[in-house]
């Protein structure tokens, strides 16, 4: 698959950021150095970026920067350019087979760590709350079509007799839910992210 590239100027115009910001983000580790690709041009040399990756990243940064420090954001992105294949995820035994099947149907190619984490969270919720795949399927579809922002750190899952409810939150705060739901589980994203990252890195070393 040949990747599409865009020049620095195109990027600045399209995202409406300044050179100062771009370089600051680079310094703070929000944009990986290897995305700054040097290419020769008629004026000598120019810097280009992998288009889809950089646009998505800048959108994320702009979303997050009002509520998080650069340091926290860079932690969030750490290890993210480790793409994971569906095959690898299958071998990790973190994610339920049925969930993976659904992933395979919608998503082709490699998965980034955020998506993998969210799928992992869903899978874990399924196991611990003993609910069936049909109930979480809509949520997984939302994950895969990127309707759930990456900024969340925790998820509460409430299961009732007939339906389930998912509540995403940023801090480990307690939320009071009404009695209608008889089971509540809370899942921290970070653990699952680390687990997947670790497994993935191990796999790469072998």
């Amino acid at each position, binding site marked *: 698959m040949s990747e599409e590239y865009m020049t*620095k*100027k195109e990027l600045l*115009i399209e995202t409406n950021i*300044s*050179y*100062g*910001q*771009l*370089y*600051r983000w*680079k*310094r703070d580790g929000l944009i990986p150095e290897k995305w700054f690709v040097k290419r020769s041009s008629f*004026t*000598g*040399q120019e810097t280009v970026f992998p288009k889809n990756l950089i646009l998505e990243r800048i959108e994320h940064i702009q979303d997050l920067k009002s509520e998080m420090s650069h340091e926290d954001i860079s932690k969030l992105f750490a290890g993210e350019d480790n793409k994971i294949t569906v095959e690898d995820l299958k071998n990790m035994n973190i994610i339920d087979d049925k969930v993976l099947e659904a992933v395979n149907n919608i998503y082709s190619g490699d998965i980034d760590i955020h998506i993998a984490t969210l799928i992992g969270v869903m899978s874990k919720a399924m196991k611990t709350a003993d609910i069936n795949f049909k109930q979480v399927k809509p949520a997984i579809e939302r994950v895969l079509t990127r309707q759930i922002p990456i900024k969340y750190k925790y998820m509460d899952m409430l299961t009732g007799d007939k339906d389930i409810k998912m509540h995403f939150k940023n801090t480990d705060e307690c939320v009071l839910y009404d009695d209608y739901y008889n089971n509540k589980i809370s899942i921290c994203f970070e653990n699952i992210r680390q687990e997947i990252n670790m497994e993935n890195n191990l796999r790469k070393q072998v």
Partner: protein
Amino acid sequence: MDELKNIKISGSASISGGSFNKISISGSGKIDGECSAQELSIAGAGKILGNCNIKIVNISGAGKIEGDLEGDDLRISGSGKILGNISFKNIKTSGSLNSEKNVTCDTFKTSGISKIQGKLKAKDIKVSGILEANNVESDNFTSSGMLKITEMLNAEKINITLFKDSEVGEIGGKDIKIVIGYNNDITNFLNNFRVSKKTIELKSKFVEGDTIYLENVKINEVSGQDIEIGENCIIHKATYTNSIKIADSAKVEISEKT
């Protein structure tokens, strides 16, 4: 905790590594392994063969460290050669610092010669001597010395006062200001009688920033929001998004608004 020992080498000796309170070498000393200490001072010739974690390091003679060096304060007024990575809070050199890998610190001041083969990363950098590096990253960068940066200088605020010919591969930041160091009326006057005119200049391939002010530079491409090109500049291409000012004596081949 046991009290740590002080070590003093004033003749010629070699010791094995370990934990110490104070190490001072005034003759010719060698430490044969990893060591940690509160303080290290080298006034003669000192050599450490392993990684070091030392709070305060003072090199006024010749020091060579073959591993990584870590601590709070590093002062070099003699010559220091470090083969591993350097990581300190404050680094001040008035002698020569020679690093084969990366240097990370909060404040970096050099009035001597600093040669860094990897990346120099700091919050504040002040150069009044000579800085040679592959890559430089910092929040504030001030220089009134000579620069030789092969790849990139990336900082929020860049203030360069030129006193010597300098060369920087790329410059990127928010506010960039490059000015000539002294009033060169006399040089200009003398230049009238010379066959080849020689002025001090900074060469670079790219300069990119939000606000840019330039003097005495030779640059391939400049781009930014507000650009002011002062005297004695030779620029191939300038692109701006907001405003541009070009001095009469500056040569700008192409200037475009994007």
